[in-house]
């Protein structure tokens, strides 16, 4: 294949059936595309260290799913909930899940609620990496979104940690949402 370091060409095609396979390799690629058709199928595969995608749809019925909605549609979502009643000064570190062999878990968000002040976080075990750590001074409902998602490899565990620093016993509820795919 010839190398065209500074090469620009406008493609303007009109027809009833058009198929264009595109394979572009370059250090810096810019590709503006305008499609005007009754029905259109567009498959794009991009492998690059930095990707910027700007897509505008108009006058079409288009479904673009967020990752949360898509994994739920595919039945790949995982939701974990832990509820425990803790006395003052008592903590609870609890495994929600251990990823099985051949799988990889992606945690998208984590939420904690309690009626007393306390400390909460989500841990990746056995490394004890801490995420979403919070020190609340009263009734708490904290929500953490992880972009990109937290990843848990096979054998790693998701652990919810909570400690009641208040003056009375209270329920502490930890919820995590994510999805699991083949590794």
């Amino acid at each position: 294949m010839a190398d065209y370091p500074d090469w620009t060409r406008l493609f303007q095609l009109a027809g009833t059936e058009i198929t264009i396979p595109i394979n572009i390799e370059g250090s810096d690629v810019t590709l503006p595309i305008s499609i005007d058709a009754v029905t259109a199928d567009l498959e794009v595969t991009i492998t690059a260290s930095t990707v910027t995608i700007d897509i505008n749809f108009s006058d079409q019925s288009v479904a673009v799913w967020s990752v949360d909605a898509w994994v739920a549609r595919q039945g790949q979502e995982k939701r974990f909930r832990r509820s425990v009643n803790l006395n003052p000064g008592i903590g609870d570190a609890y495994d929600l899940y251990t990823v099985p062999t051949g799988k990889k878990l992606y945690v998208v968000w984590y939420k904690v609620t309690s009626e007393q002040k306390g400390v909460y976080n989500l841990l990746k075990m056995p490394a004890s990496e801490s995420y979403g750590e919070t020190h609340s001074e009263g009734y708490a409902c904290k929500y953490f979104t992880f972009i990109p998602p937290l990843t848990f490899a096979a054998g790693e565990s998701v652990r919810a940690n909570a400690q009641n620093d208040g003056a009375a016993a209270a329920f502490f509820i930890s919820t995590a949402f994510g999805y699991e795919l083949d590794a």
Partner: protein
Amino acid sequence: MSLTPGQCRLYSGDFNYVSYDGQPDGTDIVTIAGGKSGQVHRMHVRDLWGEHEEVLTEEEGDSNPPPHVAARLAEVAPPVDVVGAHGGAPEGGPDV
């Protein structure tokens, strides 16, 4: 050590939802739903994820609605398409 059906689902990841309700004695009520099986498992577990994990009781139920709700759903369900989902001709009709 032989795992119960509920434990198998928990450790294999065959679920979409799991809930752990801590009990005053340190045990947990574990509810597992979704996944391939379509069943709901409810387990009372001691030392869950621990070395001495023990399932004290386990119940299994399906995720279908109760009969009275199922009857109402059937009443409002759309009529069966006699042509078929793939556009085949109704019985006795031309096979085009």
